[in-house]
């Protein structure tokens, strides 16, 4: 809504061959439309602000009661997929975005309704005090259907003066600017959060993804799956070095008399089961394994280490 647009819309474009009262009535309708435009701008800006604020709030707070993603019913995705000619598969929508959109639409509708209920011409008069009194009089005179000589003269006078008015005055530019600045700031924060999430979002959690932050101790102490305990499975060939291992049993009821021969002659206590570790080879498993299997492997490894220690 520029000055030029509003100048042409507030009366000047009305056909000259119409009677002055009709032209005045048309100009008043244009002014009402200008008021609606201003109301729409306010509502749109405020709705954008609400969308970003709510979206950000839900992402940061992560309320337990709200699921992270809402799966779109297959009936819907199938129907859309049929229309598009390709399968969409399972589609999930972030709940934060859904909630923010719903609130933003509500704010937009409510503000537009409230602002459009206010007397729009009166607001235009308040925004253009130079023409306010004449316009107010012309409005009342049109409402009385007056076509008297002085009324016609008033209409012509007001229509002429309306050329110098602007619908932009209906907008509180300062308020709009502040809102836009807040919107931009919220947008930047949202983008920043999304970028951080992409780069390191899998650093922690019970699923055991440990790609990031090896230096950072994992606070999770519960049961972990196989990948978490053993790392990525590798194909390991038998090592070239033979080690002799001497295993002393303890705590058992019977001493072990026979020297048992293992594939290795000895155990290097300093080695921790790197990529060539026989332990690792024995404990390896094929993904995906059940969690119970991982528990057994963990138990097995612990027992071997206990025996090594003793």
């Amino acid at each position, binding site marked *: 809504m520029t000055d030029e647009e509003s100048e042409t819309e507030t009366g000047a474009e009305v056909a000259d061959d119409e009677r002055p009262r009709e032209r005045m009535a048309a100009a008043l309708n244009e002014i009402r439309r200008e008021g609606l435009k201003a109301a729409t701008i306010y509502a749109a800006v405020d709705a954008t602000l609400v969308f970003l604020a709510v979206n950000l709030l839900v992402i940061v707070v992560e309320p337990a009661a709200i699921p992270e993603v809402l799966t779109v019913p297959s009936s819907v995705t199938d129907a859309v997929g049929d229309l598009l000619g390709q399968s969409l598969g399972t589609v999930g929508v972030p709940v934060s975005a859904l909630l923010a959109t719903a609130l933003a639409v509500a704010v937009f509708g409510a503000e537009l309704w409230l602002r459009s209920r206010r007397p729009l011409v009166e607001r235009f008069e308040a925004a253009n005090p130079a023409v306010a009194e004449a316009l107010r009089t012309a409005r*009342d005179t049109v409402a009385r259907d007056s076509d008297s*000589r*002085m009324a*016609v003269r008033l209409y012509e006078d007001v229509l002429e003066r309306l050329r110098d008015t602007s619908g932009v005055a209906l907008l509180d530019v300062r308020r709009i600017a502040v809102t836009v600045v807040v919107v931009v700031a919220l947008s930047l924060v949202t983008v920043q959060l999304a970028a951080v999430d992409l780069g390191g979002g899998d650093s922690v959690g019970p699923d055991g993804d440990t790609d990031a932050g090896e230096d950072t101790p994992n606070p999770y102490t519960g049961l972990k799956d196989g990948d978490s305990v053993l790392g990525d499975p590798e194909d390991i060939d038998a090592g070239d070095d033979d080690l002799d291992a001497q295993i002393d049993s303890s705590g058992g009821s019977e001493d072990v008399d026979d020297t048992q021969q293992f594939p290795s002659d000895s155990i290097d206590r300093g080695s921790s089961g790197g990529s060539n570790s026989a332990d690792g080879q024995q404990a390896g498993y094929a993904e995906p394994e059940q969690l119970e299997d991982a528990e057994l492997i963990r138990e097995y490894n612990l027992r071997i280490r206990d025996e090594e220690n003793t």
Partner: protein
Amino acid sequence: MSTDHDIDRLQEKIATAREEIGKRIVGQHEVLEGLLVCILADGNALLESNPGLGKTTMVRTIAEVTDLQFSRVQNTPDLMPSDITGTEIIRETETGREFVFEKGPIFANVVLADEINRATPKTQAALLEAMQEKQVTAAGETYQLPQPFFVLATQNPIDQSGTYPLPEAQTDRFMLKLLLDYPEYDEEQEIVDMFTGDRPQVPVEQALTRAEIQEIQQLVREVPIADDLRDRAIQLVRRTREADEIEFGASPRASMALVLTAKARAFLQGRTHVASEDIDALAPAVLRHRIILDFRTEREGRTADDVIESLLE
């Protein structure tokens, strides 16, 4: 029917008339504007001042500039109503004697009722019908007064001796009450020079005709007024009936007078609509003679204008 061009021409003529009046009347701009407003609104005006301030000269000059028939009534305690309205006399004709109505000085376009508060209430009442109805009834006959018709009455301040206060019913019929004050020093110098030189009477030219004045009066009634301004005028008048400072408030006639004079002022100033400043400017002149102050307010030394100003805030 006047076109837009005609309205411009009439407003230019009004401006010319004001200039002509200004040639003879020094200062008193507000009073002059009030008188013109009263004429354009087709009302009667009451001028109050001490003697010697040029009330008569002012009214006579307006009559000259506007091509209106002028007559003057000098009110005295022994003035009879028939001395103003006229009376029937017996006149000898070829067919015999017959009663003929001899018109009094009221039969003019502009009647200057000088020092009206020196006349008795009975004589003052004789002006009532003429002022309101624009007609005179004598001996069972009703006579229409010439159009346009204005009574411009002057009075001395009430507290001077030998005066009869105008009854409320009569003061209500004056659209405006205008107060003349003493001129400034430089204005008084100019007045002295003007009227003591070799040309004791400064000539003025006629700028408006009777027909044009009547045309303007019609246009004034057509001047649009916003609903909120009309309501403001009405509420102001109604507040005079409720204010503690006022014992007796103004009548609905005051509401009508306030709106109509506001329209006339707007037209006089070349505007196409009534502005709030018109209401503010004319409220004292419309209301000051229509209200009676409470005795406590008078004891505090406040005038009607003070109270009206507080009601306007």
